[in-house]
């Protein structure tokens, strides 16, 4: 069983890679308004990297209204622990 902390840590690595910032530190409240480069393209790259890393697939409706990192982590957690 993965914990939400495990998932958050892995997501943090993905964010650091995608935004090319080794000091970036995200938390559950982080949203697109906190990271300047987090545009729609970055969103595609983030989700793609998460699908590869966690070996999961997001459904169309699941990724439409994601508001912040906390919601992404929660979504991943459900999938990896299924």
């Amino acid at each position, binding site marked *: 069983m993965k914990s939400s902390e495990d998932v958050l840590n892995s997501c943090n690595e*993905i964010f650091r*890679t*995608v*935004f*090319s910032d080794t000091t970036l530190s995200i938390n559950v409240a982080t949203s697109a308004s906190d990271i300047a*480069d987090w545009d*729609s*393209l970055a969103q*595609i*790259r983030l989700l*793609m*990297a998460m699908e*590869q890393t966690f070996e999961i697939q997001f459904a*169309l409706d699941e*990724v439409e209204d994601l508001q912040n990192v906390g919601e992404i982590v929660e979504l991943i957690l459900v999938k990896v622990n299924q």
Partner: protein
Amino acid sequence: MSPTQTEMIPLLWTVKDRGIFMASLQQFEESLKHKTIITGCKIAILSGSTTSLVSRLLKLFLMNNGIKAEILEGHFGNFFIDAMNPSAELIAFEPDVIYIHSSRVNLKSFGNLRSFEASDDGHSLVDNEVSQSLKIWKSLSDKFDCWVIHNNFDLSPESPLGNSEATEDFGHNYATTEINRRLVSESKNFAQVLIHDLNSLSASIGLDEWWSSRDWIQYGLAVSTMAHPRLGFSLASVITSVLGESKKCLVLDFDNTLWGGVIGEVGINGIELGPDSSRGKAFLEFQLTIKDLASRGVLIAGCTKNEMKNALSGLNHPNSILKPEDFAVIEASWDPKPIAIRRIIENLNFGMRAFVFVDDSKIEVHSVKTEFPEIETILLDSKFPEKYSSMVLRPRYFESLKLTKEDISRKGTQATPRVKKLKNASTYDHMQMLKDLNAVATIGRPTSDQLERVLQLVNKTNQFNLNGIRRTPLEIKKFAEDADSLVLVGEFKDDLTNYGLTTVIGGRFEGGSFKVEIWVMSCRTFDRYLEHAMLSVLQREMVAKSTNSFSLDFKRTARNDYFVGTGVALGLFDKSITDGTCQVDGKMMVIPSELPMKVVSR
């Protein structure tokens, strides 16, 4: 240092690597910030589907080729309207290239099960699709003085009616193929129009990966996110070619590049080239690829550390597909490759950026890359000759817009292989390049574990060989153990490669002199001053034994010209040396005070 085109290629070829590439996009962009810019290019992208991703990748790959792109993207799905009635913004932009990002999602006629070839109104559905493209091209040609790059159409990964989709005149694949054929044919009437071959690109990636329903529905991407890097790369190659920045000359190493083995060592009958072994076949395949490039107008040059007679004998091997006349120039010499390449550049009279250098040796590739950052280099791994062709072709260095008769006949114009002596002193500092590699030579008596390697070197080495005399294991063992004899072995490594034990010098103390009877070195460490290091350690050993002169038991063989050349350069003897014992005048020896390595005696 910015990544080279060759270094980025492996990241584009598997889904996993493309995933890493896409995630790390920003890092790649940052790594290219200091890339030398050759030229700029204004590109307008007319949209058949989402263009933001292809736009960003195109910028990245063009920057990697030294081209700074400024891009204007049209509104989503608006390509036809933008082409027929360009906005004031597009006109004011004055693009150098207009790229129409359309694909099968933009085919209008699809959806009904009826013949694409003939319909009720007398026009086939294929005609309708082609005529839309013609309208676009005409309008853009009238309004803009720039290149127009238009995708042809990719096939669908799904075939509702299976095989019939390709074989019946109502089939989607049948129609797409027909449209693509017609587009190429019609484009010949438009000098500015180039077809970008989306169809082959998607096939190369595989349609199941090329297309993602999710990416289309969710993001409007007509090409999957994962396939996008290849799309961006392909377009960048075409635009690079449009701007006249394609490569023109392929400079090839010979040994372990065009055939397996070192011809100076194993001889014409020992090289791997031919249908009798898998490796031999792989080298043949690679030669076929090169021959094909040559026939398409790419100039081929040879750059080999070899005697010219050996280099030519390899090309004249009965199985060799490449012949001396396929080469615009052949540089066969023992000079460092940067010096040889400078001669090739002067000879062919192209700018440095026109050249691609291919070699299986890390140090050769490193030295060329360091001396000429503008020359693209490809490092081959001689364990896998079957990969050579794709290593050379995948970067699409030689993208050509239209092949002219001149291209095809170009190879004949300079087909006189020659070694031209360098007239002007080169600025290339070989010693400094070697110093920067932090080489270490460990020299001492062989351990019992090393005797087998010593035997192998003595009995297999031909080019750097004092006399070509072969020894038995017992002889070598005696040599190593006898109180009156001395054997030194040299191991060599640097930042790039651990070469292992590559050289042996051995002889006997006789009447106050040391007589060298064995002296061999593998060609892997030619040109590294290792022979100097061996002599300096030998001298120390001689001093310890109160011996101050030495002689060489020399014999000229069919293949030891390199040894003779080195001996002359070292001041050991002159060119007229004859077989027999040669007294060495120690005062004449030329050993640099500072060697480009750390010498460790053990």
